[in-house]
């Protein structure tokens, strides 16, 4: 029997969804594999629903989502500084990983944006004792404009260290898989004296294409799906979601405020607000005619069935909507370089979504946008459906 340990980033729910899909494909290619997960909330929420094996040491992981929530303000997350300020948590979680792999032999370690694993293995390559694969959907920290010279210097310094790590220790990553395509990469440098991100990524990564975690063709009969989920043919369903982190409560409240005006403009409107695993639905305002739901497993099925979604600028939700060709409005978190640059660039390439700015969008503007977008026919670039299989094939090469 082969054994793999999967470390899935707990920042949001997106990694969990795609990693479960990769694990499923990996089992198809390596039938005698056993996969353990070193994972924390909210990833464990998905894993439990999928009956995946969660390593018991997982309960000792220091919580990263809580740290991100503690650093966030109203629809604002300086994600680069927040990540830097997570240094203590990353050390603690790497030490736990090291304890786990010292006690248990694995043939393969897979880290999907498990930053601590990748960073400390490059700091200490002698600690590598299994095949190791790294997955990510973006390369390069980018400075926000109002961070000034200091932030530009800091992001370049972190990128420079990554470049040096890979150059000095090419044996650490046996596989490096980019979740996407070369065209998804922004036209930027890693830093003033550093390579273009695209050039460097093409040299050091394989491209799996996007990994959606589901096959959009299973929703070809949208009417049947709507019926199954309880959405009537004469309703216009708008799903409001902020993914898996607790950072999005301000956006949920703002869209709830927009509900009365939106309902007046679109009388068939049925708005469903999904609080997610880390926001208490009872903490949100109660409005007549508005539905508030807690965590919804396989939310992507609801997104496939809806007439409009309102979301943050996170990659997974926006790409689920893109793959299912649904209209959506997205509000990138302020100071979140990944949502503002990397994800935005990717959505532009797919021609998907309508970007709005949280500060410049009072409830009435959101209501108006909802009325304009809901039920609209879209013309997005199609999203590939074989990403999980392609990623799993690269992983399986190390086990067979």
């Amino acid at each position, binding site marked *: 029997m082969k054994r793999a340990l999967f470390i899935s980033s707990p920042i949001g729910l997106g990694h969990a969804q795609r990693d479960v899909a990769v694990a499923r494909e990996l089992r198809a290619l390596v039938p005698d594999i056993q996969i353990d997960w070193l994972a924390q909330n909210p990833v464990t929420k998905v894993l439990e629903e999928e009956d995946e094996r969660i390593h018991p040491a997982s309960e000792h992981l220091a919580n990263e989502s809580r740290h991100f929530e503690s650093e966030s303000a109203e629809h604002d997350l300086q994600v680069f500084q927040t990540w830097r300020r997570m240094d203590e*948590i990353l050390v603690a979680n790497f030490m736990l990983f090291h304890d786990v792999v010292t006690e248990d032999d694995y043939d393969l370690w897979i880290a999907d944006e498990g930053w601590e694993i990748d960073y400390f293995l490059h*700091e200490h390559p002698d600690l590598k004792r299994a095949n190791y694969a790294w997955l990510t959907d973006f390369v390069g920290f980018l400075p926000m404009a109002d961070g000034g010279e200091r932030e530009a210097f800091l992001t370049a310094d972190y990128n420079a260290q990554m470049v040096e790590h890979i150059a000095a220790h090419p044996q650490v990553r046996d596989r490096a898989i980019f979740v996407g395509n070369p065209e998804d990469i922004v036209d930027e440098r890693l830093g003033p004296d550093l390579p273009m991100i695209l050039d460097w990524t093409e040299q050091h990564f394989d491209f799996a294409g996007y990994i959606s975690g589901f096959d959009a063709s299973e929703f070809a009969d949208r009417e049947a799906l709507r019926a199954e989920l309880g959405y009537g043919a004469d309703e216009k369903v708008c799903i409001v979601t902020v993914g898996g982190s607790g950072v999005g409560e301000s956006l949920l409240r703002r869209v709830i405020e927009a509900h009365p005006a939106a309902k007046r403009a679109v009388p068939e409107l049925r708005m469903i607000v999904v609080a997610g695993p880390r926001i208490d639905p009872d903490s949100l305002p109660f409005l007549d005619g508005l539905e508030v739901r807690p965590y919804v497993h396989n939310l992507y099925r609801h997104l496939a069935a809806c007439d409009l979604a309102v979301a943050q600028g996170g990659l997974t939700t926006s790409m689920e909507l893109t793959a299912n060709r649904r209209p959506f409005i997205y509000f990138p978190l302020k100071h979140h370089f990944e949502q503002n640059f990397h994800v935005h660039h990717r959505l532009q390439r797919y021609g998907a979504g309508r970007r709005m700015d949280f500060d410049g969008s009072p409830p009435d503007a959101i209501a108006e946008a909802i009325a304009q977008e809901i039920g609209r026919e879209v013309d997005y670039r199609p999203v590939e459906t074989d990403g999980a299989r392609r990623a799993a094939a690269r992983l399986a090469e190390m086990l067979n």
Partner: protein
Amino acid sequence: MSGGGQSRARYPDADGFVERDGVRVFWERYGDGDPTILFLPAWSVCYSRLWKGQIPYFARHHRVLVFDPRGNGRSDKPAEPEAYADVEIAGDAFAVMDAADTERAIVVGASMGGWYGALMAALRPERILGAFLMCPASALGEQSPERQEQAFMDEVETEEGWRGKFNRHYWLRDFDGFADFFAGKVINDPHSTKQVEDMAGWIRETTPESLIASACAPFSSLEEQLDVYERISCPVVIAHGDADEVIPQDKGVAVAGAIGAPFINLAGVGHAPAARKPVKMNLLIREFVESLRDAEQRGETVTRIASEESVAVQ
């Protein structure tokens, strides 16, 4: 508090203050495994957050004690130099052990903490199981040429370098300038912006008056230090970076020689190995702790470890 406001990987299971001669010192306890490991302060330029890369890991296996030194964190900032004497810091450490019902502990120290740990082992050998000392301050060994130019008490002609910035008059004029300078010297390793920011933030949590008092504190002479090193009977390991600009590695080598302790060369590492190379240092400390526990379980009385050892950290 700058650097202290960020969320922690683990929070203490108990905390409190000890008071000696009217000076209150804040301590924390994490975890409950044997043996207890006491992480010592390293001068009053930082407080117990210095050990944030160690506490969560060791607390999963051991009982961990830390305390804020006089002059920083939640401890008092007395005005008199005598309050910062090395014997007072050692006294605080034993008082913290008493407050946490800890008879014996392994001590881990860095910089000035490397001296405090040695002093504790000599003063109360029955209470110290072993000492892991990083980049220890000591009168032994050669000081770097740049630091030999210091004239701490005098008005000097420059505000640059060790001579200009490690100076009490400069501290009173521009303490921020000192904080940034000293943090950059402590963590001179490449790609260490976060550690430098942390260190500069911790320095700003003391005051120039308190730090001047601590820099003027009575300190053991060379002869007294040699006597302390000679009296140590527990196992000791010395680890020191060869890129250390604050306390040259020559001093750590000299301390290891005087104690008869193994010396670990930390290749390419500056003055804050626990902050800049936390994973490697955690594993080295763990190895030391395990060796003591294994020997104890075999019924051996462990005294000094005499082998030579060199570990490449990068």
